[in-house]
């Protein structure tokens, strides 16, 4: 009876991870594992959809931080889509909008990957 779930959709070279429920120090492991799996498959264009995420704590933010440098080195990115105002506020308090791209719509997050050719370096 977990209060956190992840669903995954592969969309050409982009992978979308949709988070559902409560992301805290208990459930962060699951998210970490999912991200690690995607990266192991050499897929570096990642959108994390937070449309159904009800809650996030710093343990959840830590997972984003743990992978971003590696992903960007490989020419990819982790973009964050559809956070609720409450969830966005937490990212905002910790300065994430300076470091990550946030999108209100899933579609615009996906399109943002098309625009940039080989971003990063």
């Amino acid at each position, binding site marked *: 009876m977990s*209060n956190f779930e992840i669903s995954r959709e592969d969309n050409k070279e982009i992978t979308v991870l949709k988070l559902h429920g*409560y992301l*805290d*120090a*208990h459930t962060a492991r699951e998210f970490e594992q999912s991200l690690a799996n995607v990266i192991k498959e050499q897929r570096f264009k990642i959108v994390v959809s937070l449309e159904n995420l009800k*809650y996030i*704590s*710093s*343990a959840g*933010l*830590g*997972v984003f*931080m*743990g*992978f*971003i*440098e*590696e992903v960007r080195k490989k020419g990819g990115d982790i973009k964050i889509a559809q956070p609720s105002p*409450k969830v966005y*506020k*937490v990212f905002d*308090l*910790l*300065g*994430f909008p*300076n*470091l990550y791209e946030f999108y209100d719509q899933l579609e615009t997050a996906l399109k943002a990957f098309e625009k940039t050719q080989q971003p990063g370096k």
Partner: protein
Amino acid sequence: MPRKTKTTKKSRALYRLNLPAHSENLHVIRKFVSEIASNLGFDEEAMYQIELAVDEACTNVIKHAYRNDQQSEKIIKITLKVKEDRLIIIVADKGCGFNPAAIKSPDMEKYIKKGKRGGLGLHLIKSLMDEVSFRMKPGVRNEVIMVKKRKG
């Protein structure tokens, strides 16, 4: 014994919760705290802030407090004191303790470059609550004391 001021029923309310320091209990703790905050008339945003600050303090107890201390019972103690004008929340452990003055605010750019995680919890707690203080007695009782003002 006569009291100095007449206090309302609510202003004396005291809640105590002791439970095992396991991360699976974070959800229980958040629900507990937010239900009480809701009863006290805190709005949605304040409820989220209180939940998050308490979660961060408890996550620290789970991750840090009992690290080198396999013998002692790993218990988180949460106390809520409801005052007329504020809610005081104390998260206590009897683990190793720490020096709050030595904890610096995180430099996010550096964190990302190093791929290093953490260091965000105390920073969040200070951002979310109106007052934060600490009382350390390692092995006995270490407290993070958080105050959220109630709107008048």
